[in-house]
C-alpha cells in the first residue's frame, strides 16, 4: 500500500479519479460559463442583426463585465458543486472510506477547486474571446490584450499619489490577482465543507457578517489611535513641495508599505491563503459521519 501519508502512484490515480468526478459533476456548467465569450458575442450580434439589420460587436466594457461575472460565478459556485456533497452522510462516508491519505485527498481537492477550475476557465474564456476578436474585427482588442497589456492610466490623474505612483501601478498587474483568485476559491471551498445546505449563500453571508464585524471593531480603534498620523501623512503627500525623504523619515513603516505595496499584498494574501488552507485541512481531518 506504500506510505500512509504520500504515495505518488496512489496520488496520481486518486487525482485522476477526482478529476473525472469533477467533470461528471460540474462539466456542463463549466462548459456553459467558459464558452460565454462566444455564445454572448453571437447572441448579441444576432440580436442587433435581426432588429437593426446590422452586426454590432459587444463593447469592451460589456465583455469585461461578463468575464468578471461569469468568472466569479464559477469561482464561488464550483467548490460547493464539487465537494459540497462531503457533508452529506452517504456521500461523505463513501469519500472518507476511500483508502487514500488525508493529504492526498486534500491536495487533489485544492488543486481541482482552486487551480484547475478557475485557471482553466480563464484560459478557455480568454482564448475563445481572442478567437472571436480575431475573426470579428469589430470586436476590437481582446480581453487578453486589455487585461495583460493595458496601463492603469487613472493613476496619473491622482496627484496625491505622485510619489508612490509606480508602487500603486505595481499592484494593478494581473499576476497579483492570482492569489486573490485562489483565496476566493479557498473561502468557498471551506464554506462548502462547513455548511450543510445553501453553501454558497451562507458563505457569502458569513463573509459579509465577518467583514462588517471587523469594520465595526477596528474602525473606531484605528480612528482613535492613528487618525492624526493618517491626516498628517495625507497632508504631506498632497504637498507638492514635500520630499520623499521627509515622508520616509517621519513615517518609515507606512512609507515602506507604500513603497512595497505589491510585496505587502502578496504577503498578506499568502498569509490568508495559508490560514484558509489550514482550515480546509482541519475540516477534512475532523470530518465525521
Amino acid at each position: 500500500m506504500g506510505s500512509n501519508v504520500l504515495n505518488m502512484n496512489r496520488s496520481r490515480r486518486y487525482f485522476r479519479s477526482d478529476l473525472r468526478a469533477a467533470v461528471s459533476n460540474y462539466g456542463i456548467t463549466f462548459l456553459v460559463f467558459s464558452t460565454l465569450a462566444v455564445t454572448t458575442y453571437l447572441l448579441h450580434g444576432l440580436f442587433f442583426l435581426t432588429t437593426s439589420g446590422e452586426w454590432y460587436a459587444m463593447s469592451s466594457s460589456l465583455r469585461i463585465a461578463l468575464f468578471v461575472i461569469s468568472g466569479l460565478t464559477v469561482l464561488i459556485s464550483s467548490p460547493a458543486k464539487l465537494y459540497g456533497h462531503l457533508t452529506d452522510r452517504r456521500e461523505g462516508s463513501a469519500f472518507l472510506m476511500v483508502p487514500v491519505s488525508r493529504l492526498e485527498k486534500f491536495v487533489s481537492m485544492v488543486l481541482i477547486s482552486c487551480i484547475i477550475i478557475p485557471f482553466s476557465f480563464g484560459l478557455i474564456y480568454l482564448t475563445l474571446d481572442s478567437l472571436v476578436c480575431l475573426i470579428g474585427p469589430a470586436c476590437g482588442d481582446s480581453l487578453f490584450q486589455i487585461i495583460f497589456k493595458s496601463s492603469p492610466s487613472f493613476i496619473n490623474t491622482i496627484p496625491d499619489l505622485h510619489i508612490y505612483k509606480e508602487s500603486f501601478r505595481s499592484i494593478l498587474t494581473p499576476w497579483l490577482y492570482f492569489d486573490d483568485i485562489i483565496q476566493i476559491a479557498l473561502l468557498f471551498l471551506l464554506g462548502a465543507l462547513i455548511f450543510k445546505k445553501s453553501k454558497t449563500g451562507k458563505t457569502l453571508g458569513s463573509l459579509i457578517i465577518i467583514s462588517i464585524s471587523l469594520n465595526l471593531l477596528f474602525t473606531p480603534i484605528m480612528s482613535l489611535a492613528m487618525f492624526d498620523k493618517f491626516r498628517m501623512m495625507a497632508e504631506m503627500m498632497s504637498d507638492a513641495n514635500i520630499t520623499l525623504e521627509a515622508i520616509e523619515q517621519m513615517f518609515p513603516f507606512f512609507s515602506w508599505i507604500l513603497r512595497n505595496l505589491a510585496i505587502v499584498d502578496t504577503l498578506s494574501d499568502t498569509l490568508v491563503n495559508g490560514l484558509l488552507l489550514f482550515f480546509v485541512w482541519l475540516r477534512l481531518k475532523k470530518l465525521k459521519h
Partner: protein
Amino acid sequence: MIKIRDLRFSYGNNVVLKDISMELQEGRIYGLLGENGVGKTTLLTLLAGLKEPGAGSIEIDGQKPFDRTPSFLSQIYYLPDEVPAIRMKAIDFAMDRGQFWVNFDPDKFKEIAGVLETDTSMRMDQMSYGQLRKTYISFALACNTRYLFMDEPTNGLDIPSKSQFRKAMSKYTSDESTLLISTHQARELEAIIDPIIILDRKDVLLNATLSEITKKIYFDYSTATSPEALYSELIPGGCIQVLVNKSGEESKVNLEALFNAVHRHKELIKKMFNDEIA
C-alpha cells in the same frame, strides 16, 4: 482482531455507547442485534473510522480507525444503511473506486453482481434502491477486505434477492475475513451469522458463539409451556420457549426468541455468559 475497550460515544448530551468492551475474533461473521437507537450504526461507523470515540479505544489490527490511514482503510469496507446513487455506470464505479483497495477483484465484482442479478452497465443514479444496494454489496465483497461492516444489508432487497445475498455471503467471503452485520432481520440472516452480539443501551448484553449459546440456553419447540421459561411465544403448531440449559442438550437457536429472552433477563444472561452462575 478488533479490540474495543471502555468505548464511549455521545451525540451532545445523549450518551449512546457507554463503557463498551468486547473483542471480535478473525474469520467470523458476527451478527449485531439490538433495539432501535441502541447504537448499532454508531458502533459500525466508529469501527470504520467515520466517527471519533468520545473515550476509550478501538484497535483493529493495532490501528486506530479514526486515523483513517490508507493501510487501514484498504483492509476494511463499511456498507452503510444508505448508499449514494452516483452518476456513473456500476461497472465504471467499481473500476474507478476499486483501484484503491489492494485486493479488489473486478471479475469477482461482475460475478457477484451476476449472482445478485444486477445490471452493471446501468447508471447507479437510475437504479432502484434494491439494485443500488446489491451493487454496493457486490462491490463490498469484491474488495476482499479483512474486515467488512454491514449495516442492515438486506434492507430494500426483495425475497429472491435476500436468498441470493445469503448465497453470496457464504460463497464470496474468505475464511480470514471478519464480518460484522447489523440487522433487525434476525431470521433472514440466522443461517450465516455466528457469533451473536446483542447490544443494549450503553451495554453489551451478549457476545457469544451459537455453540456457547446452546450450551447455556435451551430452545424448546414443544407444545407444553414451562413456568421456568425465560421467554415463550406461540408459533404455528406449538410454541417456542427459551430455557436455561440444565441438561446440556443441544437445540436449534431461534434468534428472535433469544433476543427477546435476553432483553427480558438482561442481568441473568450477562451473568450466565460471564460464567458467574452457569
